[in-house]
């Protein structure tokens, strides 16, 4: 295992409203440390919902984001699934993109330079069909420079084990963790699948295998059918459910995992507003990711950040860490 790499980021200048300028002296501190990864603030964008950053640049000051987590990268480019890839569901959506991506090398050459211009932490989300692929992708990104951490998607099928997801089994999840950890000196965030009986067991397993942090949840597997044509809405039959609908499940899982591991927990799943983000912090998440909300409002991340700052001020908290894991009982 390589020595962990500490990164420090110059936090983007975030002047918000005139009102905030008056109180700048007591501006709440939002910086968080995620397993050696120091972020300006706990708001990141979720993989697959923010491209490689460019498309949102007209709407969002990327410098204000704690981190941008890019679309999942594999060793070779992947075309993805045939359409239709999307279906709307009650308070949610299904996606069956099929992990389309330009491949890690093309990312490093074509997309990373744009992101490196910003102060936001660039986190590369990676995946593979085999353990070897995870390793190689990790190596290439580590060598590239400019990547602050790796987020490892283990919700994809292990083709060598009959297609069962890497993240479905504590041993497989630990194996992926170990392989990635030995391929990089960057902080490694293991992104957990919610489609399991005991997500805390998976979390403990990856922690024991050296994960620097965990992020949860990835999408819940779901389905939607067109009753008039008696066909699925998605070409792939099933897809990943995200959005407000999944928030209660995500929140419960973050709460459970946070009570079982020592490493930082990053929470995501249905975060649309600052209040949603705060729920996750209160149950124990150190940071949050915003995904589907970007589709509803390209400026969602900025509003969430402002709202979280407003909350801290209103509740006279000087540091976001004072909020984390402070859930009381009734």
């Amino acid at each position, binding site marked *: 295992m390589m020595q962990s790499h500490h990164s420090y980021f110059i936090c983007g200048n975030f002047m918000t409203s005139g009102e905030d300028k008056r109180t700048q002296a007591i501006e709440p501190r939002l910086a968080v440390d995620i397993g050696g990864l120091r972020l300006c603030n706990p708001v990141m964008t979720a993989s*697959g*919902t*923010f*491209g490689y950053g460019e*498309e*949102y640049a*007209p*709407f969002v000051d990327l410098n204000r984001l704690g981190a941008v987590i890019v*679309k999942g990268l594999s060793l070779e480019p992947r*075309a*993805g699934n*045939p*359409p*239709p*890839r*999307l*279906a*709307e569901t*009650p*308070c*949610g*959506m299904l*996606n069956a*993109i099929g992990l*389309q991506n330009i491949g890690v090398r093309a990312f490093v050459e074509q997309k990373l330079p744009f992101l490196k211009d910003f102060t936001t932490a660039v986190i590369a989300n990676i995946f593979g069909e085999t353990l070897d692929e995870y390793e190689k992708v990790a190596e290439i990104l580590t060598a590239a420079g400019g990547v602050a951490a790796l987020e490892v998607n283990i919700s994809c099928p292990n083709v060598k084990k009959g297609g069962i997801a890497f993240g479905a089994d504590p041993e497989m999840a630990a194996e992926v963790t170990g392989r990635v950890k030995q391929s990089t000196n960057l902080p490694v965030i293991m992104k957990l699948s919610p489609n399991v009986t005991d997500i805390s067991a998976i979390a403990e397993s990856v922690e024991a295998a050296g994960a620097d942090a965990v992020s949860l949840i990835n999408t819940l597997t779901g389905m939607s059918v067109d009753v008039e044509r008696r066909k699925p809405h998605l070409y792939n039959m099933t897809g990943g459910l995200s*959005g*407000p609908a999944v928030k209660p499940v995500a929140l419960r899982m973050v709460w459970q995992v946070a009570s079982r591991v020592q490493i930082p927990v990053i929470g995501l799943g249905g975060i*649309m507003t600052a209040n949603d983000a705060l729920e996750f912090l209160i149950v124990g998440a150190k940071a949050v990711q915003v995904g*589907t909300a*970007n*589709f*509803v*409002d*390209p*400026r969602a991340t900025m509003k969430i950040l402002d709202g979280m700052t407003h909350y801290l001020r209103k509740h006279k908290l000087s540091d976001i860490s004072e909020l984390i894991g402070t859930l009381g009982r009734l």
Partner: protein
Amino acid sequence: MHIFPMSIAGKILVNSKVVNEHFLMRIELSPAFPQALPGQFVMIRDSAAQAPLLSRPMSIYAFERNRDSAFLEIFYRVAGEGTRNFSLFQSDHKVQILGPLGKGFTVDADCRRAILISGGIGISPLTFLAAHLEERRKNVPLEITAYVGARSADFLAGLERLAAHCSDIRICTDDGSTGYRGTVTDLFARDLPGYDAKDSRIYTCGPEGMMKRLAEVLRGHPLPCQVSVEERMACGLGACLGCAVPVRTDSGDVAYRRVCKDGPVFDISAMVWSF
């Protein structure tokens, strides 16, 4: 010159039923909204409601701007939940607009005849294009010929405005209740030999079946044809990859292209229809 889309609030001025389940919505926006180009679209949602979750893509039917305001029009039919909600909005209702999005139609300098082939609600982007071409016609000799198809006379929504911009307009109905009895593609196929590939350009938008038939008619033919296609969307701005459709690239390979960003307008010969 790259125009960045904006996400801004708009106020509904008009939202009225035109015919059957077809509505015209006129929205007032800030004059900061960029000049929209024919073939581009917007993602529209109710400012206040959280459901349905996703914004709906709508072609830009008309766009004008002055110093004080911009005015955007969409022409839509009630299909499902989202559009049904839209049809109930009253004047002064606030909507959120993301746009203008996508690559619209391109009109090259050599074009002397624009052939617009329209089916169903495809009449919307083609009408905006026709208005644009009518402006161009002031400076350049240009014939604007439209073929408009519908199931029957009752379903010919939006004809008047399109016709106003065109040199001539040929109507087709499946049941022959008005105009030519048959599909637009049949009628166009008959007229095809009369068009000069050097200076004629086809622009089309309509139901998938119609566009596939047109692609067949034009297979191997030198007449250039641009098609505006549809696919389900989440982000509308190129990030989620949800709207990807298979397209034949210049190298001959088939690759996925985003309808919201690389389209919605494509060369019809590049489309890989699921035959």
